[in-house]
C-alpha cells in the first residue's frame, strides 16, 4: 500500500508544483487587472528558453555549475523586467474598460506574436539543460528513484505560496494590491496609483509564469509549442480554483496534477483529458470554481 500511495503522492505534488507557478501568475493578473491573459503561457516558454540558454552558456563557459541555480531565478526576473512594464503600458492598458472579447483577442494576438518571436530568436530545435538535476542527484522513495530536484520544486512552490501570503497581508505594496483587487474605484478615490499597481501585478504575473518555465527546464525539454500546452493547463487550474484566488490556484494545481497522475497510473487512455474532466465536474458543481464567488455587477 505504502509503495503504491507514496509514488502517487510524490508525482502529484511534483507535477502540481510546476503548474502552480504559472496558474498563480495567471490568477494574480486576473484578480488585479480583470484580464484573462491568453498570452500567459508564452511567458512560461520564454522563461524556459532564457533559463536553458543561460544554463547552457554557464556550462559551456566553464563557470561554476552551481550558478545554474540562481540563473533560474535571474532568467525569470529578466523576462518579467523586459516584457512586463512594456506590454502592460502599451497593449494591455489599451484594453482597460473595453469588453472581454477585445481583451481576449488582444492577448491572443500577443500570444501568436510571441510564439513566432520565440522561433525567430531560439530557433525550432529542442533545448536541454539539466545541470541542476545532475548536481542534486536522486533519492529512492517507495522503491522508485526520484530526482532531488523534483522535491526541491515542491518546497519552492510551498515557499512561493507562503511568501505571496506574507507579501499581500504584511507589506505596504501587497496591501495596496489587495485594496485594488477589492474595489478599483474606491482605491482610486483613496489616492492609490492604480495604474502603477496594474503594472506591478502584470509584471509579477509574468515573473511567476517565467519562473515556472525556468524551474521546469532541468526536468523537461524546451521546444516550440510549450507555451500553448501550458496556457491551456493553467486556465484549467485557474478555473477550478476560482479566478483570482491564490489558495484556489494552489489547491487546484494539486487536484489537476493528482488527476493526471492517477490517470497515468490507472487509466492511461485518460491521461490527456483528466485535468479537463476534473475542470468540467468542478464547474458543473461550483460554476465560480472552488474558492470563487459570484461577482456583483454594478450598473
Amino acid at each position, binding site marked *: 500500500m505504502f509503495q503504491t500511495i507514496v509514488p502517487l503522492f510524490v508525482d502529484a505534488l511534483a507535477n502540481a508544483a510546476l503548474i502552480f507557478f504559472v496558474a498563480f501568475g495567471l490568477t494574480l493578473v486576473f484578480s488585479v487587472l480583470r484580464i484573462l491573459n491568453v498570452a500567459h503561457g508564452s511567458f512560461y516558454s520564454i522563461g524556459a528558453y532564457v533559463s536553458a540558454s543561460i544554463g547552457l552558456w554557464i556550462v559551456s563557459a566553464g563557470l561554476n555549475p552551481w550558478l545554474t541555480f540562481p540563473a533560474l531565478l535571474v532568467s525569470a526576473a529578466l523576462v518579467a523586467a523586459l516584457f512586463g512594464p512594456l506590454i502592460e503600458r502599451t497593449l494591455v492598458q489599451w484594453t482597460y474598460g473595453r469588453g472581454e472579447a477585445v481583451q481576449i483577442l488582444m492577448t491572443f494576438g500577443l500570444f501568436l506574436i510571441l510564439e513566432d518571436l520565440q522561433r525567430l530568436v531560439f530557433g525550432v530545435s529542442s533545448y*536541454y539543460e539539466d545541470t541542476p538535476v545532475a548536481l542534486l542527484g536522486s533519492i529512492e522513495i517507495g522503491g522508485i528513484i526520484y530526482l532531488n530536484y*523534483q522535491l526541491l520544486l515542491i518546497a519552492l512552490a510551498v515557499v512561493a505560496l507562503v511568501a505571496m501570503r506574507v507579501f499581500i497581508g504584511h507589506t505596504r505594496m501587497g496591501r495596496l494590491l489587495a485594496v485594488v483587487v477589492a474595489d478599483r474605484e474606491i482605491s482610486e478615490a483613496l489616492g492609490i496609483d492604480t495604474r502603477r499597481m496594474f503594472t506591478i501585478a502584470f509584471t509579477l504575473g509574468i515573473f511567476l509564469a517565467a519562473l515556472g518555465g525556468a524551474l521546469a527546464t532541468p526536468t*523537461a525539454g524546451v521546444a516550440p509549442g510549450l507555451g500553448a500546452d501550458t496556457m491551456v493547463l493553467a486556465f484549467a487550474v485557474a478555473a477550478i480554483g476560482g479566478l483570482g484566488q491564490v489558495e484556489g490556484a494552489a489547491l487546484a494545481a494539486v487536484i489537476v496534477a493528482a488527476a493526471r497522475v492517477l490517470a497515468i497510473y490507472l487509466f*492511461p*487512455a485518460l*491521461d*490527456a483529458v483528466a485535468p479537463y474532466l476534473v475542470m468540467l465536474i468542478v464547474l458543473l458543481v461550483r460554476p465560480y470554481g472552488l474558492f470563487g464567488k459570484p461577482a456583483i455587477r454594478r450598473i
Partner: protein
Amino acid sequence: MPKPKFRLAMTAAAAAALMTGAGWAQDKPARLDLGVFTFLSGPSAAYGLPGKQGAELMIERINAQGGIGGVPVSATYVDEAQGAEGVIAEYRRLAEGGRAQAMIAALSSGNCLALSPLADQLKMPTIGWNCDTHQLFLKDQPDYFYRPNGNTIAEFMAYTLYFLQQHPEVKRVAIINPDYAFGHDAAEIVKATLKAVRPEVEIVAELYPKLGASTYQTEISRLSAARPDVVFSNLWGGDLENFVRQAGPRGLFRQSAVVLALGETVMQRVDLPEGTIVGVLGDGWWMSPDARTIGEAEPFAAAYREKYGSDPVFPTIKMANSLIVLKAAYEKAISDNDGAWPDREQVVAALEGLSVQTLTGTTTFRDDNDGVVDQVIGTVGRAEGVDRPVMTGMVRYDGEALLAPVGQDPIAWIGTLTPDFLADLPRPGSYN
C-alpha cells in the same frame, strides 16, 4: 537500286526515327523537380532534419554523376510540422503547379495515409520514404504510391523477437509509445507477437504520452513502479531525446532492459546506456556488414560527416535509399521507353516489382507496393577503433519472413505464428 515500296518503308522509318529523336530532345526536362516532405521544425525535426540532409547530399551525388538520365535533380522541401492540412495543400500546389514531377513523401504516417489517395488522384509518382504504418496498403492499393523501406509489422516484430532472444527470462513488459497511429500500431504488433510466441509474458504498463510532450517524469515513475523486465518504446525525435535524458537519472535503464526502436537516431546526441536495444527500422545501418560489402555507404557517410559535422542516422539512410529507388525507377522507365524520357505512368510502371540495391541492402517491391527490406537490430556498445557508441550484437532478420503474405491481415497472420518461429531465427550477434 531499292524497290519503290522498300524505299518508302525506309523513308518512313528514317522519318519516325528522326521524329522520335526530336521528341526525346523536346520532352526531356531541363531538370527533374522533386517535392520532399519531412519535419523541418519542432521536436520532430530531430528526426526530420537528418532526412532532409540525406536528400540534399544524395541529390548532390546523383547530380555529380550526371543526374537521372542526364537530367539534374532539384528538390523543394516541405515542412510537415505545419500539420496534415498544410501538407496536403503543399502537395497539391507542387503537383498541380507543375513544380514537381515526383514526390518523396512523407515522414509522418498520418501524412502518408492522407497523401496516398492524393497521389493517385493527381497521378503523381510518390515514394513514401518514411511511411512505416502497415495501415497504408491494408485497404487500398494505390497505383502511384510506393514504400521502399518496409512497414511496422516487420519492424516491431523484429524488435520483439530480438529482445525475447536477448532476454529469454522476460516475464513482464511495459510499453511507452507516442499517442498516435505509429505508437498504437507498434504496441499492437508487439503484443500480438508476444501472444503468439511467448504467451506467458505479461504487459504490466501501457502508456501513450502525447506527441511533443516536454516531460515524462510521471510516466517514468509509472514504468518504474510496474517493475518490468523490458521497457519497449517507439518514441522518436525530440520526444525520444527527452525521454532518454529524463529516464537515465531516474535509473530506468538500470532497472529494466530498454528497447528504443528509434534509438539509433539519438546515439550521437544523448548518452544511451550500453545494452540498450536499438535498431534502424529496416536495414539502414550504414556500418553493417552488407553496407560494407556494397561499399557505397561509407563514402556517403564520409561526405555527410564533412558536410554536416556528424554521422548519418537511419532517417538519412532511409531518405538516401528512397532517392536511389526513384533513380532506379526512372532509369528503368527510360530504358523501357527506348531511351526517351518517361511520363509519370511509365515511371510507376517501372516501380512495379522493382528490385534495387541500396546503400545498405536490397529493397524489392511486392505486388502491394510494399518494399521488402531486412531488419537489422543490435544493442548499444563499443567497437574497437570507433570513438562513439555503435550497434553491437547485431542480427539481420530476413524481411520477407517477417511480413504477412500480400492481402492477408497482418495481425491475424502474426497470430498464426508459434514459438518455433522464434527458435528458427538467426541469433543476436550472428551479424557482425
